[in-house]
C-alpha cells in the first residue's frame, strides 16, 4: 500500500481542485504518485513491483542520463517552449518506467500544481518496456490564489515498446489567467498500444498542444480522445497527430468540443505512410453561446493500401432533440444537460474502469455546474 501524499501547503480549496483533476492524495486507488508544486518535487514513489516513479533528476542519475529516451521523441529545437525547457540547468518533471512484463491495475497519478511560480516547467519521460502495461492519470491544476498569471511548459516523451501499452489520461483544471503549452510525442513499437485522453472543462487563458504518436511498429494502435469546453476568454488550440509507419498500424482521433463563448481550434492529422494502415478522425463541436470552433481535420495518405477517413461537424443543440426529451417530462435545462452529457460521453476502448470513471466524474462536475 503506497503512503498518502503529504502536501503541507494545500488549503482545503486547493485539495478540492487537486481532487477534481483525479488526484487521490490518500492514495486509496492509486499505486504510485508524483507531485510537483511549482518547481518542487514533493512526492515520487510507486508500490507496484517492476514500475518506477522517479523525479527527472533522480532518473538521470540512476540511468546515466536516460540517453536512450531524453529528447528522442520531442526535438529540443521544435519551438520556443522546447528550447526553454531544454535550456534549464535543473530540469524538473517525472520519469515513469514500467519494466519488462510489469503492469499496474491501479493507475499512477502525476500531479503538476502551479502555485506561485510564473512559469512551471517539466520534462516527463514515460516508458513501457516490452510486454508492460502502464496506466497514468495526470492532473494539472493551479492554486486558487494564483490570480496573477502564470504558464506551464510540459515536455512529455512516451515510449511504448514491443507488445506494451500505455494509457495516459490528462485532466486540466487551470484558471482564467494561465497559459499552458504541453509538448508531447510518443513512439510506439510492434504491437504496442498508446491511448491518450484529454479532458478540460474549466477556464484557461490559453492552451496550445498537438501531441504526436508515431506508430513505428507493426500492428500498433493509437487512440486520442479530447473532451473540452471553452468558456469566454479561453483560447484552446488543440490537436493530435498519428503517423502510421508500421504495417497494420491504426489510429483513431476523437474530439468533442463545446464552446460557451471561448475559442477552440481542433486540429487533427493522420498520415498513412504504409500499406495496410487505417486511421479515422472525428471532431464534433457544439456552439452553445457565440464562440468559435474551428475544426481542421487533415488526412494524408501517400501509398496504396492506407485507409483514412474523417468526419467533422459543428452545430447547435437540435431543437427537436430537446423537445423530444421535454415531451418525456424533462424541463428545458434538464433536457439540454442530458443531451450535452451524451454528446461528451466518449468511451475509450481499452481504458481501465477507474480512469473512465475519473473522466466521467470530471464531466459530471461540469454538468453539476450547468455546463
Amino acid at each position, binding site marked *: 500500500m503506497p503512503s498518502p501524499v503529504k502536501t503541507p501547503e494545500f488549503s482545503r480549496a486547493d485539495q478540492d481542485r487537486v481532487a477534481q483533476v483525479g488526484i487521490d492524495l490518500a492514495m486509496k486507488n492509486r499505486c504510485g504518485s508524483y507531485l510537483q508544486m511549482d518547481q518542487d518535487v514533493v512526492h515520487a514513489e510507486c508500490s507496484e513491483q517492476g514500475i518506477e516513479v522517479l523525479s527527472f533528476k533522480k532518473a538521470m542519475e540512476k540511468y546515466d542520463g536516460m540517453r536512450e529516451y531524453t529528447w528522442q521523441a520531442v526535438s529540443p529545437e521544435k519551438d520556443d517552449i522546447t528550447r526553454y525547457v531544454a535550456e534549464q540547468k535543473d530540469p524538473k518533471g517525472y520519469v515513469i518506467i514500467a519494466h519488462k512484463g510489469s503492469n499496474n491495475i491501479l493507475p499512477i497519478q502525476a500531479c503538476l500544481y502551479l502555485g506561485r511560480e510564473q512559469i512551471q516547467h517539466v520534462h516527463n519521460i514515460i516508458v513501457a518496456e516490452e510486454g508492460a502495461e502502464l496506466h497514468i492519470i495526470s492532473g494539472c491544476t493551479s492554486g486558487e490564489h494564483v490570480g496573477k498569471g502564470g504558464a506551464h511548459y510540459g515536455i512529455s516523451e512516451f515510449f511504448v515498446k514491443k507488445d506494451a501499452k500505455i494509457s495516459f489520461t490528462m485532466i486540466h483544471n487551470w484558471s482564467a489567467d494561465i497559459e499552458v503549452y504541453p509538448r508531447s510525442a510518443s513512439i510506439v513499437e510492434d504491437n504496442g498500444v498508446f491511448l491518450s485522453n484529454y479532458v478540460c472543462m474549466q477556464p484557461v487563458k490559453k492552451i496550445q498542444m498537438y501531441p504526436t504518436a508515431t506508430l513505428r511498429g507493426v500492428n500498433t494502435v493509437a487512440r486520442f480522445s479530447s473532451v473540452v469546453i471553452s468558456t469566454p476568454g479561453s483560447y484552446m488550440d488543440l490537436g493530435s497527430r498519428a503517423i502510421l509507419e508500421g504495417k497494420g498500424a491504426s489510429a483513431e482521433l476523437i474530439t468533442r468540443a463545446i464552446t460557451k463563448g471561448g475559442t477552440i481550434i481542433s486540429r487533427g492529422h493522420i498520415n498513412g505512410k504504409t500499406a495496410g494502415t487505417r486511421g479515422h478522425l472525428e471532431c464534433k463541436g457544439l456552439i452553445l453561446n457565440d464562440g468559435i470552433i474551428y475544426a481542421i481535420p487533415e488526412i494524408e495518405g501517400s501509398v496504396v493500401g492506407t485507409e483514412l477517413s474523417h468526419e467533422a461537424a459543428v452545430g447547435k443543440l437540435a431543437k427537436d432533440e430537446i423537445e423530444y426529451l421535454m415531451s418525456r417530462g424533462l424541463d*428545458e435545462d434538464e433536457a439540454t444537460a442530458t443531451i450535452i452529457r*451524451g454528446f461528451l*460521453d466518449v468511451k475509450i476502448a481499452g481504458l481501465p474502469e477507474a480512469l473512465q470513471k475519473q473522466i466521467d466524474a470530471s464531466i459530471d462536475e461540469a454538468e453539476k455546474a450547468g455546463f
Partner: protein
Amino acid sequence: MLHIEDLHVKVGDKEVLHDINLHIEEGETHVLLGPNGSGKTTLLMTIMGFTSYSITEGKITFKGEDVTTMKSHERAQRGIGMLFQRPPTISGLKLGKMLTAISRNKGKDIAELAKSVHMDKFLERDINKGFSGGEIKRSEVLQLMIQNPDFVMLDEPESGVDLENISLIGTAIGSLLEKEKHLIKRKKSGLVITHTGFILDYIDADKGHVMCDGEIKCHGNPREILKDIKQRGYKECLECRHQ
C-alpha cells in the same frame, strides 16, 4: 380527460388545423384516421406542446386544467405522453441514460421493462441510431412504459413494423391503456393515428374520427369507418359521410 375546443393551429404563417373539437373521456381510446398530410400528426404535436405548432384560437383542457399555453414538459408531467412516428436520433445519449432521466427515480425497474419489449440489448446504444422500424417503436413504447402517462397518444404505432413486432408492441400498448381491466375500472385514455388498423386488434378503440384538410370531418365507430375507407378510399368515404 382531454377536451379540445375550437382549436386553430398555425405552423409558420399557415393555418393547418381549423376549428378542431374533440372530447376524450377517462378510459376511452379514440382513433384518428385521415389521408397523409391531413393534420393528424400536427394535432398530436399540438396537444403535446411542441413549439413549432402555435395555437391561435381555442383551448385544450386536460383533467380539468387548461394546458393550452403550457410547455411540453409540464404537459408530460401532468400525464400526457406520446409515441412518435419518427423520433429524432440523439448521438451520444444512451437509451438507458435517457430512461434513467425520465424515470426520475420512481422505482421503475428499467432493465426488467426493457426486457419485456426486447430492448434490454439496446440500453447502451445511442437513442434511435441505426434502430430498425420495429426497434424505434419498441424504444418508444418502453419510454412510455416508464413515463406511464394517463393519456397516451400514438402516432402510427404499427408503421414500419413487422407482424411479430406488431403483436409485441400492440400488447404493450394495450397494457399502457389498461385494456386488460374492466371498462369501469379503466382510467387511461388514448388517441391513436393508424392507417392500417392493425393496432385496433390490441386496443379495442371506442370512437373514430376522420380528419381531412385540417378539420375533423366525421365521427363514428372506428372499425366501420376504417372498413369504409378500405373499400371506397378517403375521398368517397368523406363524401358519403358528409351527405
